[in-house]
């Protein structure tokens, strides 16, 4: 046989809630050679994780391998009895999960879980396993390799956990490592460190890899070959350079376009209105008792000031925990600030939403990150959109129905969706409904809190495009909050950079990476993955220097 992995005619069936069987993988053929890293790329639902898991002879609940073979090192994982599969897991094929934070058992120490593979398969005595684990920790550039294993998972940061999960996978010296979107949940600056560590240990161990991701730029750094998946079928396979330079399939081209969104289309310069639309001055917010210095016990926002001009967009960027979402909640009045002023169109707003007049609420709307939790799953789309119409505009009956239709048109959704429940819509459709609900109020300012983070890149790019069109049609202003610099740059006129609750700088989109700007802004800019396969290796070590405040933000 020629290859370490040979997948032939793989078909996987899933059982829906109604008991219907549908085929989610429809006859896939793939090969992975010894020591080669193959990337599986595609949007959610394309079947990339299902294929990767089939290499371990495993399917998630409700799914089963219906046909074909998955041969790893001469053995068909699809046909082996469960006990023999279990014997190969961890020793022949190892798995690195999407969210290490969830994949580590919270009640046991990291070390126990890393060396569990050796214990299960009786590979080596515990002391030898521990020594090997420490070696791997060191190879993965983890801090305090000698003692980090004694900690519990919640005492270790997300990026470190992700590297620890790589140690957990490599301790059994597998021939094949499955990476299941291992950096998707990480901040860009952390992603670099983790990718670099992965790349180093994979080179060292000479193991082959299957890297599942929806991010072409990330994949470009680590994969030798790329397979593009859609609807449970392979659309295109090729060497990384070839896929990036000469994509043949239209879907691959759409994926490539989504990585580098076209820089913001020129917005109409109708700078009407004399003053700024929103003015936030010296706002302090947080949780807990307020100390004598006027700061709350756990401050989340420290004296942040910003302005949004009418018809212009302000981006707020920063890593998880920097306070950007809290700032959105403060502006919307969900979390009343401790001190500071918020003025809409020159009129001061009360701290809490409950004290604000209904018209002020109408003019300032917020769209949340997760449409799944923001939309009531028991209400049809029409009802969800109808409620703000009645609340803000007193519309009822036929006028309301007509307006709901227009709103659906506005967000480019078919009117027939009116009677559907949110659970029946796709992620992108739900986010459009979420947006339409904010538009129903006829706002002047819309706060978009990470609205594209949970979406696939192609779907997210479409939402961004929609935001631009709506802005031209309705003259809206956006506050666009995200951790994705490219996304923010593509739509915003000004971008505020936040670190640990403080706004450290405000830049024009084109000024990122320019000399003289704050080192953190430069770090953010440098950390954005590029499609160039040599990007990660070409990065100077200085680009990934541990930024001092990160230690606090990471925990």
């Amino acid at each position: 046989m020629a290859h370490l992995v040979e997948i032939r005619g793989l078909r996987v069936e899933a059982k829906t809630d109604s008991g219907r069987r549908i085929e989610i993988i429809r006859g896939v053929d793939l090969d992975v050679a010894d020591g080669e890293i193959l990337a599986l790329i595609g949007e959610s639902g394309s079947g990339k994780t299902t294929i990767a898991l089939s290499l371990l002879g495993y399917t998630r609940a409700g799914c089963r391998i219906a046909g074909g073979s998955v041969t790893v090192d001469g053995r068909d994982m699809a046909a082996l009895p469960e006990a023999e599969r279990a014997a190969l897991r961890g020793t022949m094929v190892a798995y690195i999960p999407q969210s290490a934070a969830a994949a580590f058992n919270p009640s046991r120490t990291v070390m126990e879980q890393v060396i569990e593979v050796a214990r299960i398969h009786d590979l080596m005595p515990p002391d030898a396993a521990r020594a090997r684990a420490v070696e791997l920790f060191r190879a993965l550039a983890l801090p305090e390799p000698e003692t980090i294993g004694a900690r519990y998972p919640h005492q270790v940061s997300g990026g470190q956990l992700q590297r620890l999960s790589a140690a957990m996978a490599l301790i059994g010296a597998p021939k094949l490592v499955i990476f299941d979107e291992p950096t998707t949940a990480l901040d860009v600056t952390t992603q670099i460190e983790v990718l670099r560590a992965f790349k180093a240990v994979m080179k060292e161990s000479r193991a082959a890899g299957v890297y599942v991701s929806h991010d072409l730029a990330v994949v470009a750094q680590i994969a030798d070959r790329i397979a593009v998946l859609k609807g449970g079928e392979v659309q295109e396979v090729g060497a990384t350079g070839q896929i990036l330079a000469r994509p043949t399939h239209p879907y691959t081209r759409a994926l490539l376009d989504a990585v580098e969104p076209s820089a913001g289309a020129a917005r109409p310069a109708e700078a009407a209105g004399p003053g700024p639309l929103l003015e936030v001055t010296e706002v302090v917010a947080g949780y807990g008792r307020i100390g004598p210095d006027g700061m709350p016990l756990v401050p989340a926002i420290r004296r942040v000031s910003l302005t949004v001009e009418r018809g212009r967009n302000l981006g707020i960027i920063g890593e998880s925990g920097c306070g950007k979402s809290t700032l959105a909640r403060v502006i919307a009045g969900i979390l009343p600030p401790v001190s500071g002023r918020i003025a809409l169109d020159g009129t001061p707003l009360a701290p809490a939403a409950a004290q604000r007049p209904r018209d002020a609420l109408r003019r300032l709307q917020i769209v949340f990150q997760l449409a799944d939790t923001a939309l009531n799953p028991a209400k049809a789309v029409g009802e969800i959109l109808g409620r703000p119409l009645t609340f803000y505009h007193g519309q009822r009956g036929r006028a309301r129905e007509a307006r709901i239709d227009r709103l659906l048109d506005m967000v480019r959704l078919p009117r027939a969706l009116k009677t559907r429940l949110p659970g029946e819509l796709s992620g992108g459709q739900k986010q459009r409904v979420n947006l339409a609900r904010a538009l129903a109020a006829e706002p002047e300012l819309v706060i978009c809190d990470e609205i594209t983070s949970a979406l696939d890149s192609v779907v997210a790019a479409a939402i961004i495009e929609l935001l631009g069109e709506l802005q031209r049609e309705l003259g809206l202003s956006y506050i666009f909050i995200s951790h994705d610099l490219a996304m923010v740059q593509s739509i915003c006129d000004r971008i505020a950079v936040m670190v640990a609750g403080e706004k450290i700088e405000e830049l024009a989109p084109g000024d990122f990476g320019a000399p003289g700007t704050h080192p953190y802004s430069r770090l953010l800019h440098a950390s954005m993955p590029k499609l160039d396969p040599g990007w990660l290796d070409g990065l100077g070590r200085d680009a990934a220097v541990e930024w001092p405040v990160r230690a606090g933000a990471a925990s």
Partner: protein
Amino acid sequence: MKSQIAYLVLNRMAAALVTLLVVSFTIFFATAMLPGDVAEVLLGQAATPEAVAGLRTAMHLDEPAILRFLRWIGGLATGDLGTSYANAIPVAKLIGGRLANTLKLAAVTAVVSVPVALGLGILAAVLRGTLFDRVVTALTIGVISVPEFMIATSAVLLFSVYLKWLPALSFANEVQSLGQLLRVFVMPVLTLSFVISAQMIRMTRAAVVEALDKPYAEMALLKGASRTRVVLRHALPNALGPIVNAVALSLSYLLGGVIIVETIFNYPGIAKLMVDAVSTRDLPLIQTCAMIFCLGYLLLITIADIVAIVSNPRLR
């Protein structure tokens, strides 16, 4: 972090103490509000007003309620449970043997039902969706829906009347051999086990199912761990909190909630004593029994909460 555990545990114990105080207050004033004058009831129809007044003074009934409460609670704290109104025997003596009987029954029931219930619950969770799981689930729902007197009477009908294997009544004081002990205990224990197991099975199943659905259980499976290992080493430790709470809630029922079972089997336990005390308006006895039930309940729940606190890795 260690000090945080100590703080939380102490906090929990203080809360239990305060609850106990509030409950004692409630018990005392609730019984004090019962209609009728104790002295008149005790002396019967032929009581002269002088005799009633004399007795009231002797029993401190003419003092303000709050003073009587303090006197009573002080007595409880120093081990003086008062004297029964009905037969002038110290309450402690009346309760002593009965409490031991109830605890004996509770202990045997716990030893039988807890392992069986946890085992069934875990097994049902592991074999989720199979015939076994469905049968267990259906049976537990069935048992929850059937009132315990129904189970008890059916058991008597089956084992005593038709099969004639077991005596219909329990005389726990006449137990001399292990065989007799078994004969006395089988039916009450069976009935009580049915009643308390159902909840434990359901909670255990739910908690283990939840833990098995977590990514870390899948991760363990993908490391090559066997199903047994995934359940015992990964799922169970994280499901401990809710399981211990369900067990504590179920067991607390064995102290105060066994009135029906004790009555049907004529078992001389403390719950039956309390029912008798109510019919003779024996206030000190009622109050003490109520306090014992409450104490047992609080003790079990507090232990369960402390176990949950200590087993929480985030506090380690």
